[in-house]
């Protein structure tokens, strides 16, 4: 089995009386597309929030490349190469598609107040240098024609693409996609899946939450099923599909 790059141990989060997440152990292995599925309210997004540190876990620990990141700030975690998208797309509405991309790609140093005030030659060169990658990525995502439009003028599906493109500007090692196909039409879904497979073959590890089971089964190497905060099944798509516990979680227990 290949190396584990993200490892989670006994992660717990409660909201009042509700145990939202209670994951004993979760590993993300190098080079795979892993999907996280489960009924509504299973705690998938909360789990995402916990491992990206957008929410703090009550207990447990998170390791990224064997480094303990349990207490790290979310933005520092992103700098280490774990970049996420959101279930409800978050694009910068009143910035152009191009600016959205450029902000994502721009280095933190160049965004320093003094550096921006002085504006050295190297800053300008580095900023201009981004344009190549922006064009490349926008072409990949079929967004190049919308480059100068405001992000809020995009359709829902295109916003999903832009959010993905923005994440790619960070050269992520791990990409966490929260429902990348939600609200995307079937044709665009196909394209998106194609893109996701393509990214994976370039060495980006992908963990995604998705409700479209067909798509999940098609592209994932591994499927993890959550229900009521716990991981109830974990394995190859075929195994998960026929797992009795998964069927029960989706269709309701047969005891009822």
């Amino acid at each position, binding site marked *: 089995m290949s190396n584990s790059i993200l490892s989670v141990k006994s992660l717990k989060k409660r909201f009042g009386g509700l145990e939202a997440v209670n994951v004993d152990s979760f590993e993300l292995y190098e080079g795979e597309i892993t999907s996280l599925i489960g009924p509504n309210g299973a705690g998938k997004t909360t789990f995402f929030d916990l491992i990206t540190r957008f929410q703090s876990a009550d207990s447990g620990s998170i390791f990224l490349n064997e480094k303990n990141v349990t207490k790290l*700030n979310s933005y520092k975690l*992103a700098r280490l190469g774990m970049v996420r998208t*959101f279930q409800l797309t978050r694009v910068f509405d009143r910035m152009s598609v191009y*600016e959205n991309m450029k902000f994502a790609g721009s280095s933190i140093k160049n965004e320093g107040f003094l550096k*921006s005030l002085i504006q050295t030659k190297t800053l300008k060169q580095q900023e201009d240098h981004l344009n190549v990658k922006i064009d490349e990525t926008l072409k990949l995502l079929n967004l190049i024609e919308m480059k100068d439009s405001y992000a809020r003028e995009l359709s829902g599906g295109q916003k999903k693409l832009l959010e993905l493109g*923005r994440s790619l500007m960070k050269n992520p090692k791990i990409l966490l996609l929260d429902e990348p196909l939600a609200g995307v039409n079937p044709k665009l879904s196909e394209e998106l899946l194609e893109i996701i497979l393509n990214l994976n073959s370039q060495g980006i590890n992908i963990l995604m939450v998705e409700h479209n089971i067909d798509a999940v089964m098609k592209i994932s190497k591994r499927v993890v099923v959550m229900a009521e905060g716990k991981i109830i099944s974990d394995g190859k798509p075929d195994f998960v599909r026929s797992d009795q516990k998964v069927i029960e979680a989706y269709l309701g227990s047969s005891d009822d």
Partner: protein
Amino acid sequence: MNKYFTAFIILVLSFFYIFFSNDSGGGRVFVNLLTFAGIYGLAAIGINVHFGWTGLLNFGHAAFMGIGAYTTVLLIPHSLGREGVVISTGLPLPLAIILGLIASALLGLLLGLPTLRLRGDYLAIVTIAAAEIFRLLVRDFEDLTGGVYGIIQFSDSLQNSRPDFITQFSENYNISSAQLWVGLLTWFSIVFVLIILARLKKSPWGRALRAVREDEDAVRALGKNAVLLKLQSFMLGAAIGGLSGIFLVFNYGTVQASTFVPVLTFYVWAALILGGVGSLGGPALGAVIFWVIIAGTDTISRFLFESPDGQQLAGVRFVIVGLLIMFCMIFKPSGILGDKEELLLDVK
């Protein structure tokens, strides 16, 4: 109609009005108006960095203006309080001004550190409260600030630097030379500040602020420290507010606890909204319009009352400013120089 053309027409009409509606020397009123407009404009530019660029709600601008002004004035020669205790030694004015700006920025840091991690509304509440606390502290620490009696005789530090030709010019046209000097320096500062801000707005830093305004979580997800960016923006806007406060007290020639009342903050907001949130020059234009209205209320009051007293004038003033902002919100919600895109302004 082009918005710059609209702005131009409004400016021309305003100047026309100022010169020909006053029988008591157009020049004097003109300088008075432009000086106040410049001061309020500079303050509004500070709030624009907070609200227009970063989406931060600051309702305590008077405190930032005040702390800058008090710091500067207390560091230069001045007289203090009821007895008028003379303190004849002090720092050179430029140094005192720089320290004043630093004091404003530090107050921004102090208020921002605990609140900028929270939702936007908390900052609004904290700044309102801080402005009142500041004013009451200034009133009660009479030994340091002169309290309600305030500080006087500090203007010389600035007026000594006034070139002779300005004094000469003022005498020829029956203008207050001291006020002309403050007014000119204010408008020079506006130009200087706007040049710097134009540079920053286009820079990666300015872009990052806009991203923070749009969506803080997305900013964090992309590995950027949103709190740090907000803090920097907050301190920069506070320092610009401090500069306007310094000019305000030099324009009055005195400073008391009542100089920095909450209504000052809201007048500055009115100027910002009239001019256009988010645009570079909008706040300054809005301040000019605001002060023309303030001056114009005198004329209108004469139609309403035979000989209006101060209270009636103030009443008419509030009504007209309020009406104008209402009209502005209905017909041109983005302000005169504002961008249509600013309409969706939401606070994070």
